[in-house]
């Protein structure tokens, strides 16, 4: 399967007693407590680990640090949605999950760089969503009071 972490994507295949990580073969033995993976053995030594999957994300704890992986679909579904949107200069992405507290511009408005378009609120924190450049606000995806996820497009500027 293809796993990504940060900007790296690796083909990982698990076989009986070994993993191929890209072009390398790493022997290992999984160790479980009950049904839960609690450690991985390699070279006669056992290293504690925790790992859990939720949707296309896998979260791993190892040696006091936490790592997030994406499980890439088998097909060539290239960059993830959030990233593609970010790459698209016109889209303005939600930096965090939250609630739209205020909408300070309307579709069709001519807006200038730095102008506050929306105020997003989460967990007692207000965050101003500003226009990244001068242009025309062609789309406002949400209204006041709406809940938004992190990484969704909030507005589009032409």
């Amino acid at each position, binding site marked *: *399967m293809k*796993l990504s*972490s*940060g900007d*790296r*994507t*690796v083909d*990982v*295949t*698990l*076989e*009986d*007693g*070994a*993993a191929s*990580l890209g*072009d*390398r*073969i*790493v*022997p*290992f*033995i*999984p160790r*479980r407590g009950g049904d839960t*993976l609690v450690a*991985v053995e*390699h*070279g006669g030594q056992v*290293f504690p*680990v*925790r*790992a859990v*999957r*939720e949707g296309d994300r*896998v*979260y*791993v*704890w*190892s*040696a*006091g*640090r*936490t*790592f*997030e*992986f994406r*499980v890439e679909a088998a097909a060539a579904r290239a960059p993830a949605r959030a990233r593609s949107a970010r790459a698209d200069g016109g889209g303005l992405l939600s*930096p*965090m*999950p*939250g*609630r739209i507290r205020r909408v300070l511009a309307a579709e069709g408005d001519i807006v200038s760089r730095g102008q506050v378009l929306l105020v997003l609120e*989460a*967990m*007692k*924190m207000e*965050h101003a969503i500003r226009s990244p450049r001068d242009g025309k606000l062609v789309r406002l995806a949400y209204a006041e009071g709406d*809940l938004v996820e*992190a990484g969704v497009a909030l507005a589009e500027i032409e």
Partner: protein
Amino acid sequence: MDPLPRRLLIANRGEIAVRVARTAREMGIEPVGVFADADAGAFHVSHMGRSVGLGAGGPAETYLSIPRLLEAAASSEATAIHPGYGFLSENAEFARAVQAAGLLWIGPPPDAIQKMGDKLQARRRMRTAGVPVVPGSDAGATSEDPSDEDLIRRGAEIGFPLLVKASGGGGGKGMARVDRAEDLPEALEETRRVAIAAFANGRVYLEKFFESPRHVEFQVFGDRYGSVVHLFERECSVQRRHQKVLEETPSVALDPRLRESMGRAAVEAARAVGYVGAGTVEFLLDERKNFYFLEMNTRLQVEHPITEETLGLDLVRAQIEIALGAPLPAPWRGGKLLPQGHSIEMRLYAEDPNEFFPRSGRILVWEEPAGPGVRVDAGVGAGSTVGVDYDPLLAKLVVSAPDRAAAIERARRALSEWVVLGVETNAALLAAVLAAPEFRSGRYCTDLIGRLPPRAAPDPPDVAWIAAAIAAGDDVPATASAAGVSAARPSGDPWDARSGWRLGA
């Protein structure tokens, strides 16, 4: 002391609701919880004797609804209310409503809350009491609601950068830094607008801005009989977005003489408003060790546990006993308290460790640190949902050790044990603070976090890739044998990311 209530309603959620419930139980009082509909499976509910629903809606309709809270107290036959921190804890109207309903209010007198809640009023009282305040536009001013022209004139006298602050704000909210005189009018307007919306109080004032201050606060306690004492300081300079991330006590910035004068000022501050119960006086400490009153928090502070740990006390128990009419314990009044060792609190937030954006989701794995010198006050557990409507504080890790160096190493050990999967946290930021030479030396101020290198997402070691693949598919036999496979790296430390293989592409 009046008899103990049979049930205590805790008008809060998260870790502080659990914290208060624990002391209630130890006193033989049944803790009664409250929850918004969407929060019925929340962690704090599991720590109550029973809980009562506050109905549907967001915070404003539930945890901030005075009528619903009073109803909950009535229906559960609770005869006392503890507000925790946040929510209605510093709302004098709530305190009065609780008392008017014939319930015991575990908090300071409503008048004291009100007097300290208005920053301009509080600053005036502090000046009168001889407590130094941060220089600002209100010093010697004839009006507490001056015109923008007056403020702009005072701004020029104070000098830039300066802070515009809302009189109704506090705790890092309702303030703006202004670097140039020409930006002041807009900042005044914006702050006033925000203040009207947030605090229903549009008065603003200007404060001198300090480049490298420390924030040091003193825990104070007063009783009904006029005694007020302090329980030493907490160093709160490790902040992001003007909010605390890590606190420690004692503060390395104080010597015994400075501690004594700041402690005396804190006691005077509390006395000036007739304070009863637990409160915290926050000071700004400049590079030349001048200190200035910033504000007083008229409630239990998030970081109260480090005071509990170094003094071996239960501050919630003291709050309840004082509310019931007990005098301050004799050793407190006699100056017999002596802090032991060093204690550090770390706040685990659901937020990314670089930009501090809140994160939400479901906690899939949650394993807390434990063992010697470790206390965890958590507000979530495995399976908990972290939403966007509430404070992102997941839990507080409090470590104690004989000295600061040992406490720092204990903090690092404890952090390394903490397994939180499913929701991103600021654990990497906390680890970076503990590792920073500036922090370790003790010579740091509020700009510490801003000066740290970014918390780069670490390169996963082999073991993490393998574990991720197992969790993603979980299709490997549980006791597969490694026999017959040639080891690519048979020796050394192949699992250490530092020495680790770099991915090809």
